[in-house]
């Protein structure tokens, strides 16, 4: 029985060892979090909350809600693709949703779990983009995202407090007045 439980626990531990990444997860597998979220486009902005669940099998589920509690958007990333579960009509524009999906994959460094992503150390190739990961003291500091024509596309910045807790992450778009800022709720 002991031997069986030892083998079983080793089997459970193996995938975790195999998938250890040089820069730790923003939201580790098996964890949930709720973030204060701000979407900015031109001079207008929309505040709300982004609830995120990163399951052990790397399925990522997100839900954006207004401050009044209205569900605006719910999506699941599974097997390398996003599936919309609910999108409020006011947000249901193809370009916008696709942009949000890419931004979420970048913010949570979740592109690293996409089987189509190519790991070249600090440089990742994903979805016709090259992503350069900058880290400091073992923590993620910044992502530089470039298009296949080597043009800057997006930048993601991460801030931590003195205790090493993530306080803010923000994605900005080059040449496009759109940004998303996420702050974990305490």
């Amino acid at each position: 029985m002991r031997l069986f439980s030892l083998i079983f626990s080793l089997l459970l531990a193996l995938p975790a060892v195999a998938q250890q990444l040089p820069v730790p997860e923003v939201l580790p597998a098996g964890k949930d979090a709720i973030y204060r979220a701000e979407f900015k486009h031109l001079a207008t902005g929309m505040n709300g909350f982004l609830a995120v669940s990163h399951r052990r099998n790397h399925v990522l589920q997100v839900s954006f809600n207004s401050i009044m509690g209205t569900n605006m958007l719910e999506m699941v990333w599974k097997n390398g693709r996003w599936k919309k579960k609910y999108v409020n009509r006011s947000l249901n524009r193809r370009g916008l949703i696709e942009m949000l999906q890419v931004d979420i994959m970048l913010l949570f460094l979740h592109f690293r779990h996409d089987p189509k992503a190519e790991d070249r150390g600090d440089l990742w190739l994903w979805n016709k983009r090259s992503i350069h990961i900058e880290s400091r003291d073992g923590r993620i500091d910044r992502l530089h995202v470039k298009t296949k024509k080597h043009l800057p596309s997006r930048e993601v910045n991460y801030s931590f407090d003195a205790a090493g807790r993530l306080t803010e992450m923000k994605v900005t778009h080059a040449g496009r007045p759109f940004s998303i800022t996420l702050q974990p709720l305490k």
Partner: protein
Amino acid sequence: MSRLLPILLLFLSTAMFAQDWKPLTATDPTIAKLRKDLGAMASIKGNIRQEKSFAFLDDKLVSTGYFSYRKENRLRWQFDRPIEYIILIKDNAMRLREAGEEKQYKGVNRILRQVREIILGCIDGSIIDNANYKAAFFGNATSLKLDLQPKDRQLKEFIQRIEVEFAKEGNKLRSVMLTDPSGDITHIHFTDIRTGQTIDEAVFTDF
């Protein structure tokens, strides 16, 4: 465990039937009195605790604050935590402030109009007779409940169901439960409700 199971089941069934909601007709005297009391209410204020549940999360998102309402159509709805968020409604005008900054919305105005209609409707009771909803009434020993389902297709895309609960004693607003089309539930609990007090006009005009 096998000995405990019947006791546990008995406890659960007692808890389930403790609410014991019985259907009421729209002409029931308790509903008529609720309509009359809400119609006569000059002002109301109290504390808000909003709990948003997500089908895929164990954690709930809890927001707290307070509200003030004065007849006709004056409302201040304020969350202080986790984000400061204030809605001011004065007649047909509506202003918003988020995290210390007054906001101008374009894309979500339709949603905000519906939020306004629901909040005001639940507080002043106008939602009972709102033709956009199919209403059902229920009562138990201590409370009255309105179960509202939107009829309009556009409204259904925004909200699936609204349940409003009033305390029978004084017909005071107790809670509002909103079910999203996605199945997520927002439960708003009202406490420390005070009616008939003088509320200054500035409460509805100044952030």
